[in-house]
């Protein structure tokens, strides 16, 4: 008889670590992008992709071989690449008469295409054409989205999310003030997206906050939006699901007012008036025989109504 389920153990420690790193995690790794060259990619598209890749590094891999595939018709081969390289972002470049200088940008969820967007490169100036120093590899960019289309149209909202996903890089909890060096701006106007990259210069302003000046670093691109293939609302919701560990715990009975002060609600037991400290008068003080009879702590002579009696009384009232 053969072996039923040979679930192979990793042979080396390195292999084990590699497999562990690939597994789903609560706090995910930074997304890796693959840049796939189509069989018909033009020089413009190729250079554009190379520039995108250099900005995306160290989370970018360039595939220089020509690949005969059409992501909008059949994304299977891209999904295969994604699985092999553990990369969930992709960019694909091609060129033909109907769609000249075509760039397809997209992302995957569970190694299946989630969102895909086709962009036409209308004008392009590569990174190398701009003079001056460039930013170090792996710098987290400041992302700017301008234009009301990004806020109002649902499709563009999704595209904004896609661009954010593609360019934001590693998730960080703290940032070095001098490390803010790179700005990417997206402007959406009438089916066009203007994409620019700037380097930040911090100048003295006489105050603590520096005056910002920008120097264009390149690349510079004007892109036209062509086809899109966005995930359904359900699928997108599923992909956005956050692990319960990461969600902040809901605080009960604590609220913030409009003025910013914190208001809390406290639940207390009913006050026992028997133990209430009233004014000390000599005449109310217990005599020796009383103390022995009622106990030292009871304050007054009259029997104090206790909880049980109160409760009973209220019940009777309600019944009537």
């Amino acid at each position: 008889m053969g072996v039923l389920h040979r679930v192979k153990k990793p042979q080396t420690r390195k292999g084990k670590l590699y497999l562990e790193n690939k597994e789903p995690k609560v706090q995910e790794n930074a997304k890796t992008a693959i840049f796939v060259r189509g069989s018909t990619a033009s020089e413009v598209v190729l250079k554009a992709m190379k520039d995108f890749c250099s900005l995306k590094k160290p989370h970018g891999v360039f595939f220089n071989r020509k690949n005969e595939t059409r992501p909008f018709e059949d994304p299977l081969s891209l999904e295969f690449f994604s699985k092999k390289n553990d990369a969930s972002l992709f960019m694909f470049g091609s060129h033909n008469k109907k769609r000249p200088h075509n760039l397809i940008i997209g992302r995957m969820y569970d190694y299946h295409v989630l969102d895909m967007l086709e962009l036409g490169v209308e004008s392009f100036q590569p990174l190398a054409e701009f003079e001056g120093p460039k930013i170090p590899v792996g710098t987290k960019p400041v992302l700017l989205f301008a234009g009301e289309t990004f806020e109002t149209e649902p499709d563009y909202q999704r595209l904004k999310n896609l661009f954010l996903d593609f360019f934001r890089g590693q998730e960080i909890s703290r940032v070095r003030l001098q490390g803010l060096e790179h700005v990417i701006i997206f402007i959406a106007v009438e089916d066009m997206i203007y994409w620019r990259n700037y380097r930040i210069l911090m100048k003295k302003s006489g105050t603590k906050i520096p005056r910002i000046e920008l120097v264009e670093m390149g690349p510079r691109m004007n892109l036209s939006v062509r086809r899109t293939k966005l995930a359904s609302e359900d699928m997108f919701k599923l992909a956005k699901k956050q692990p319960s560990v990461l969600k902040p715990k809901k605080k009960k009975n604590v609220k913030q007012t409009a003025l910013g002060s914190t208001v809390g609600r406290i639940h207390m037991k009913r006050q026992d008036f028997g133990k209430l400290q009233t004014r000390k008068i000599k005449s109310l003080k217990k005599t020796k025989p009383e103390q022995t009879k009622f106990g030292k702590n009871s304050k007054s002579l009259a029997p104090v109504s206790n909880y049980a009696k109160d409760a009973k009384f209220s019940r009777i009232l309600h019944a009537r």
Partner: protein
Amino acid sequence: MAEIVEKVLARASETAEKFKPVTVSKDIDVEFDLGNLLVSDPNPINTKLLRTEQEDYIKALARDNTQLIINKIWELPTERFEDALVVKLPPPTTIVPREKPLPKAKPPTRWEQYAKKKGIQKRKKEKLVWDETVQDWKPRWGFKRVNNDKNDWLIEVPENSDPNIDYFGKKKEEKKERIAKNEFQRLRNIARAQKTKVPGVGITPSETPSKQQVNRNFFRCQTNGYFDSTQFEANVGDFNKEKGKNLQILKELQSKKPKLDVDKAVKTLSHEESQSGDKKKEPKRRSKSGGKKGANRKPFVGKGKGNKKGKKR
């Protein structure tokens, strides 16, 4: 007094001339997501300017928005981290889809199930152990471990045992067996977790299974896996149930009447009847009244063909 005011005003105007302002005014307030270093500017774009003075317009727009987010970031509390001035960013507010589905909890192994039921807790063992012979601390397992008899050139023959056995070979064999057993259990746990059929029969961890392994599988085959599915009972269970069980046993022992097993009685009766009747029909009828599954069945350990029914699995 007036002189002082004038001086202050003059200095202010001087600084204003010297430096450009850091404030930016917008018609509609821009939205920030500091965790992602993201600015969304909902103000309408001046399309005319965008057409005529494209680069200058975009650059000015970018500068203003960058200044706004820098102002916001500079408001955050700073701290020192590895000789650099850093600010702590709030968590991102824009949720980006995950790249993989949420991690699933690992299903418990059979031992973990058992340990939970019995309340066995994991104990942390020290990694280093004191070795009496060497008078030094040694690792509990792994390279240069304590009590390592792997390279012994001599093995003492145990009392009352055959001196002609290859004890070196035996030791090797035992080690192999232990590894194989562990692998087998690992596979069974995986199969159970994937809700596929748990391998019980016929699957052996090695190409040449040992006699013991074969016997174990054969036993499982004979009992139809009855002992595989035994439920573990908790250490501290229902006292009344246990008491009742024990009392029942006592009662049965005390009573002089023989315990009547109805099933068995019927079976023997039918068997006798069939023997007195047609002998050819006998085996068929017997197989039909096979009795309850798993009940009254004794484990059969050993070689031989045994029950033919068991071979199905």
